[in-house]
């Protein structure tokens, strides 16, 4: 799989953009010396790529995020350093855009520079099992809202249809027709069908561009520190 210099992940709130962004940055790092990931979510103070800062830094991936990200100070602010993505042409960059049109609005200020350089891919992350995007029409409506807000057009689709912990082979297979219809109607290719690693072998021949991903984004507070006791 070849990549453009800048890859943006945008989509409906809760579709899985952040986790895919982190996975993608880690994958890019295997091929490129300098990888930047930018957390440009100005909407949600929780579940951000900043949560994965430690893993990213350990792998030498530079994280750009607002000074207020994960500070519990609920201030929607853009990181001053974000322009480094545009200026540093040596770097390969992943941009984790905030959810929906509200989140994508903040991207608009970088759109002219990204469009001018024209070495980017903007991927639309979809999940059939999110209640406001259960079908082609509703998902495309969200897509057009995002495109209008950030003044850029999507170039591809990431089918991340999942039901959290309850995701199984059928969950993914049952989303194939949905992703296919969105792809055909919008004219955008399905660049990835993201599945958890344990499902990859079962699904790699059955879905388009099957891509294994790990779960980096914090899921449950209740499952922590299981093994600390009863030694």
């Amino acid at each position, binding site marked *: 799989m070849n990549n453009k210099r800048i890859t943006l992940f945008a989509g409906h709130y809760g579709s899985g953009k952040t986790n895919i962004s982190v996975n993608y940055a880690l994958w890019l790092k295997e091929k490129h010396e300098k990888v930047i990931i930018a957390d440009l979510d100005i909407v949600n103070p929780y579940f951000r790529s900043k949560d994965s800062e430690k893993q990213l830094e350990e792998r030498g991936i530079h994280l750009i995020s607002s000074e207020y990200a994960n500070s519990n100070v609920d201030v929607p602010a853009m990181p001053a350093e974000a322009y480094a993505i545009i200026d540093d042409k040596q770097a390969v960059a992943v941009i984790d855009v905030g959810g929906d049109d509200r989140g994508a609005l903040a991207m608009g200020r970088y759109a002219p520079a990204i469009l001018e350089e024209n070495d980017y891919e903007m991927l639309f992350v979809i999940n059939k*099992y999110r209640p406001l995007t259960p079908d082609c029409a509703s998902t495309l409506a969200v897509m057009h809202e995002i495109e209008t807000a950030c003044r850029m057009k999507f170039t591809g689709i990431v089918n991340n249809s999942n039901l959290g912990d309850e995701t199984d082979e059928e969950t993914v297979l049952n989303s194939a027709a949905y992703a296919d219809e969105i792809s055909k109607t919008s004219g955008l290719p399905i660049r990835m069908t993201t599945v958890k690693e344990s499902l990859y072998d079962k699904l790699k021949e059955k879905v388009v561009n099957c891509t294994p991903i790990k779960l980096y984004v914090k899921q449950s507070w209740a499952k922590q520190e299981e093994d600390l006791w009863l030694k």
Partner: protein
Amino acid sequence: MAEKVLMKGNEALAEAAIMAGCRHYFGYPITPQTEIAAYMAKRMPVIGGTFLQAESEIAAINMIYGAAAAGKRAMTSSSSPGIALKSEGISYLAGSDLPALIINVQRGGPGLGGIQPSQSDYFQSTKSAGHGDFKLIVLAPASVQEMVDLTFKGFDLADKYRMPAMLLSDGTMGQMMEPVSLEMGEVKEYDKSSWAACGTKCERKHNVVNSLFIQPEELERYNFERYERYAQIEANEVMYDEYKMEDAEICIVAYGVAARVSQNAIDKAREAGIKVGMIRPITLWPFPKAVLNAAADKVKAFISVELSMGQMIEDVELAIRCKKPVLLCNRVGGMIPTTEDVLNSINKANSVGGDK
């Protein structure tokens, strides 16, 4: 079975409210519950409902008063400091015997506090949601599915007993994503024609919705009547869940996110041979007093696991008439007790009594 969807707790309860027939939502943004307002803003115009971002929490709760007085199912939501602002309006709803659902997605306090989860509004919701003698039905979900089920239940109970109900959630429940089923059965319709101010068509006497009664005899009568209804609720509407209580020697009492952590700790403790169980209140008012009191005759100690400085523990002690020691296991300020925190308390409780 209905197909499952993947939802945040906040979105799930918003959709459940719509499915319960709520077409009037008034709110004001505050983290960690803003997704409720955002979801309503998207959905209400599509289904012919009303979404209104009020100028303040106080305005929002008084809009709820208006919609409820007209006999409509209405809901507002906020987080801890915002609920404090609504308390005057909540008291007026109670004093006017109006049904409504109020959502509190709790965050750490006091004051402006922080945006991480908390359960420190237990006293506020169960004992002092406003001035005057009144109660709220208080429902405490411990999963995204229960955010759905108890929202549905909350509207029903509010209508059934003509009083405000509260869903007492927290930042964890609001923000976490889980698969849920939105299949909820029939919405029961209640006849509100005897009291709702929804137009007489010149065919009947006016209905008057009011909480002002300046004659003390009359005001006393309304208070007595209201508390007769509360007694019925205490007799008929208590909800709780039991986990591994059959042979338990230690009983954890926990609700919401604290119950989820406790369940993991119970499984761990049982691997080490300690017989622990849990009674999880689902209604915080009415509080499951009888089942706790009965458990007190079997177990040697209780542990109240809370994200507060120890609020529910008082109700546990009252319910069991202080027959057995009650330990507190708590984290506050947005911190959540870990499995290890609860296990440490289980160890302490296990050494209580000495003979086992």
